[in-house]
């Protein structure tokens, strides 16, 4: 008995196996995996909806679906992608990475972590089931503007309930992230030493908690307006339908940053690794993130310049929105400076990160153009807006998620992914996505409104092109699924550090991280 006996647990308190392992999971790595798998499934479901939309828009005229179903597709595509794919994916990354990055054994509230995940499949089953209800699913756009959304059929209360469930899940996730980051950092890991991904998630969680009740309250008022005779948003009873837009966007604009701030964090982790050079301007990155978060509370009006605000309001929202370009610019400049005089290699995560910087910046430019109120009167509700937010969310948020997946997959699975396939996936994605969304700028400027199932002949060429891009991009994601499965099952053994230039606590763990935490003592300098 000279050393502690190492035995393998075989008796009843062993962790459960099979499905029960996942249902009762409290381990941050299990939950992180669940989130990531769930979001990948939702990404594919939402993607199928997008492909239905693009198939209908391939040519003018009605070919495949009715206008009503088309509207259901646009609405569901947005809800599934925003709440089902992008947000859970980032929560999954947070679950996997935050404890490893800050040197904590697990998330702070493991049981709540389990609930916050398992609400999601139910919420989305409910949401998707509305498509089969009398009157179809929600067709008033993901922004749920009244009075149109009140014309939804039997599905309406179910939609509201599922939005509530998504909100509860997000809030629980955010509480967990906050409690973990604040309480469980390893000794010496001060706030200003935290990796940027952790920082951006802390700010994101703060935003989530600040705005989620507004969404919950807003959709509840829709519900009472429809069923309980209140008239919050009904002009006949003294309400104002535009107030819903104010409330929605007071939530919605921070929500946009909730989807992009963690992406900033991911990119800020990846670029230094492959440039083999520390991140340029760490503290300014933190302050830029915080100021973007703060500004996000006071710019919601730019989503609704056309509702007829007085001049002073339009000017206020225009100026406030333009100012956001400054901290965002600081971030882009910092990334470029990190690459400057580095020693770069271009593995798949780096390729996605570089594509992110370029394409997100293009999305930022069109965002700046949209901020200019008088010009926005032309852009508003056209394909220019569609192009803008897809550049920000697809080549922004989704590309950062792809980069993150390739970057940390060897760490998670212990196997290197197939670099050649990864590069093929990258090039197909980046070419497809640009063919898909770049022409939409032209469509919008030429005057094609969003959310229409059929269009005038002058828009035919670009729509056909866009649809072709959609199919290239969409099907190339199946390659990604294949690469992930292949990496999990086989592949070259990954080293602990995986990437030559990787820095940070998670790279000191073995690949895959065999246990909760560190085999060598984390030392933070």
């Amino acid at each position, binding site marked *: 008995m000279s050393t502690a006996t190492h035995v393998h647990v075989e008796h009843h308190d062993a962790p459960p196996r099979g499905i029960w392992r996942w249902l009762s999971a409290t381990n941050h790595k299990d939950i992180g995996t669940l989130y990531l798998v769930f979001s990948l499934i939702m990404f594919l479901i939402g993607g199928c909806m997008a492909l239905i939309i693009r198939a209908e828009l391939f040519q003018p005229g009605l070919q495949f679906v009715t206008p009503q179903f088309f509207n259901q597709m646009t609405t569901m595509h947005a809800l599934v992608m925003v709440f089902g794919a992008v947000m859970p994916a980032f929560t999954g990354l947070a679950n996997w990475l935050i404890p490893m990055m800050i040197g904590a054994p697990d998330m702070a509230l493991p049981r709540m972590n389990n609930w916050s995940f398992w609400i999601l499949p139910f919420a989305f089953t409910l949401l998707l089931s509305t498509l089969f209800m009398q009157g179809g699913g929600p067709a008033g756009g993901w922004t749920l503007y009244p009075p149109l959304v009140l014309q939804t059929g039997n599905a309406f209360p179910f939609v509201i309930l599922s939005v509530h469930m998504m909100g509860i899940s997000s809030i629980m996730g955010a509480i967990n992230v906050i409690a973990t980051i604040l309480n469980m950092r*390893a000794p010496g890991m001060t706030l200003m030493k935290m990796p940027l991904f952790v920082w951006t998630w802390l700010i994101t969680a703060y935003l989530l908690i600040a705005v989620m009740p507004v969404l919950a309250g807003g959709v509840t*008022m829709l519900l009472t307006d429809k069923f309980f005779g209140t008239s919050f948003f009904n002009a006949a009873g003294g309400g104002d339908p535009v107030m819903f837009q104010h409330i929605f966007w007071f939530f919605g604009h921070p929500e946009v940053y909730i989807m992009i701030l963690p992406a900033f964090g991911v990119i800020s982790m990846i670029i230094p690794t492959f440039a083999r050079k520390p991140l340029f301007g760490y503290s300014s990155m933190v302050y830029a993130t915080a100021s973007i978060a703060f500004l996000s509370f006071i710019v919601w009006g730019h989503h609704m310049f056309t509702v007829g605000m007085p001049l002073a309001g339009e000017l206020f929202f225009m100026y406030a929105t333009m100012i956001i370009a400054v901290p965002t610019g600081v971030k882009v400049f910092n990334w470029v400076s990190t690459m400057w005089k580095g020693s770069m290699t271009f593995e798949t995560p780096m390729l996605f990160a570089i594509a992110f910087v370029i394409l997100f910046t293009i999305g930022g430019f069109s965002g700046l153009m949209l901020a200019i109120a008088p010009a926005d009167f032309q852009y508003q509700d056209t394909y220019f807006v569609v192009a803008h937010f897809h550049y920000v969310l697809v080549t922004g948020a989704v590309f950062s998620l792809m980069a993150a997946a390739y970057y940390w997959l060897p760490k998670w699975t212990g196997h290197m992914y197939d670099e050649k396939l990864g590069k093929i996936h990258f090039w197909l994605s980046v070419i497809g996505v640009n063919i898909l969304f770049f022409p939409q700028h032209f469509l919008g400027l030429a005057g094609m409104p969003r959310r229409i199932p059929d269009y005038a002949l002058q828009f035919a060429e670009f729509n056909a092109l866009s649809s072709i891009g959609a199919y290239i991009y969409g099907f190339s994601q199946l390659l990604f699924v294949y690469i992930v499965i292949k990496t999990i099952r086989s592949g070259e053994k990954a080293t602990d550090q995986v990437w030559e230039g990787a820095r940070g606590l998670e790279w000191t763990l073995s690949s895959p991280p065999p*246990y909760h935490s560190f085999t060598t003592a984390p030392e933070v300098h």
Partner: protein
Amino acid sequence: MVDIQQHADTLQCRFVLRPNRSLSWRGSLLFYFSLLIISSGIAIGLTLLGFWPVLPFAGLEMLALGIGLYVVACRCYECEVISINGDSIRIERGRDYPREQWTLGRMWARVVLERCPRAWYPSRLLIRSHGRSVEVGRFLDEEERQRLADELTRSLRPALVGNL
């Protein structure tokens, strides 16, 4: 973190186990109130405009956040004390005072570090004696638990030698 107090001559030693915490109670409170002010500010603002349904949601959410932070803060103050004294091992667990305690015979005590057969799961450190076993150091990270296991084993050995 593990704090070891050992008296080389008396064969007595104490292990004080605490989870790592990086935010003080005061810090938690400050953080909570900063969020409370923001969230209730928004909710009260909207209530004044007549959109009161936001308020209960904000309240519920703040309650959940408060409970979450409180539970974590309490868990961070959890403490386990393992005293090896003569021929007994006393294990106490509690926050301000020992809420639970066990006494095991030192003679037959074994320190067992159980590793889970599946990746991603934590190991468990058990002190076994006469078929009873007590798990200690759940909240430690892997490296600390490993070190504690080694230290415990070492501390138990001299007694074994002395008695034989």
